[in-house]
């Protein structure tokens, strides 16, 4: 019985060690770095601009849709950023 208790204690100590040693601190969270906002923003903008450019080419309305979709892109980017920060905070 005492040997079992010893083992339990050892396991707990090791667990704590692992916790303190290997768990990333909150400001170095991998998920946090996954959602680095810059890429999210730029990617949305890029997609929106591409769609705008393509629609313009299709309808021959040169700068109109690219401008409209620029704003859409910014909005989508902000949406992405908000979602990302929500997800980081959830963790």
């Amino acid at each position, binding site marked *: 019985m005492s040997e079992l208790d010893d083992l339990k204690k050892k396991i707990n100590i090791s667990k704590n060690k692992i916790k303190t040693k290997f768990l990333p601190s909150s400001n170095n969270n*991998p998920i946090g*770095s*996954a959602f680095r906002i810059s890429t999210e923003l730029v*990617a*949305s903008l890029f997609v929106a601009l591409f769609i705008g450019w393509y629609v313009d080419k299709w309808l021959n309305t040169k700068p109109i849709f690219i401008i409209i979709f620029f704003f*859409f892109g910014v909005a*989508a980017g902000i949406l992405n950023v908000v979602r990302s920060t929500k*997800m980081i905070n959830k963790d």
Partner: protein
Amino acid sequence: MAENPMEQFEVFKIGPSLLLNGTNVSLTNSSLFMIISVFLIILFFALGTRKLNIIPGKIQVLNELVFDFISKMINDTAGLDAKPYFSFILTLFLFILSLNMVGLFPYSFTVTSQIIVTFALATIIFIGVTIVGFIKNGVGFLKIFVPSGIPVFLLPLIIVIEIISYLSRPISLSVRLFANMLAGHTMLKVFGGFVVALGIYVGWLPLSFSIALIALEILVAFLQAYVFAVLSCIYLNDALHMHH
């Protein structure tokens, strides 16, 4: 600087030209390092599973560690429903990790610093996740673009924004990996060039910086592979359990 730091990303043909229906699919240095990375992973598993024991050997422990790590990650991000996709996520993670790590060796080539490769990978995931979403939810998957509790007159606007947001996923996924690998390797090359240029008396300063940078790059190589896998899981989670 003696060399152009971008030169390391040059893709060139090795061996004979291969044509498939008139398209050039020749073996390149990039393909070669894909093959090497895949071979390393296969070797890793083959050695680990050569003699499976209840009490595992050293490499078997590593294999099981990787399995544990990925299955935990999938459980945390996508839940138990994502279990059938375990092998895919595992493959994805190990493939990217191996490509990143192999790329850190001198004179090797970093496949993940090719935007087309990361973009193709992200696209595979994007298409796969979309297909899974449609299989699981049918046409109802389109509701992912229609958030609840939005006034009707704002709906078209929001739908366009949501579609853009959805389409931006493969872009941000691929650009994140690509940019990290590209930036790290460019900086390594630049500082390596400084070491050579400054010579033996002053060169140790950028050299020490280079060493620190390599340590950082190893971390980044792991982290980016992990992030790529985690984000894939999160997208998969969106497709499996729609919460919009």
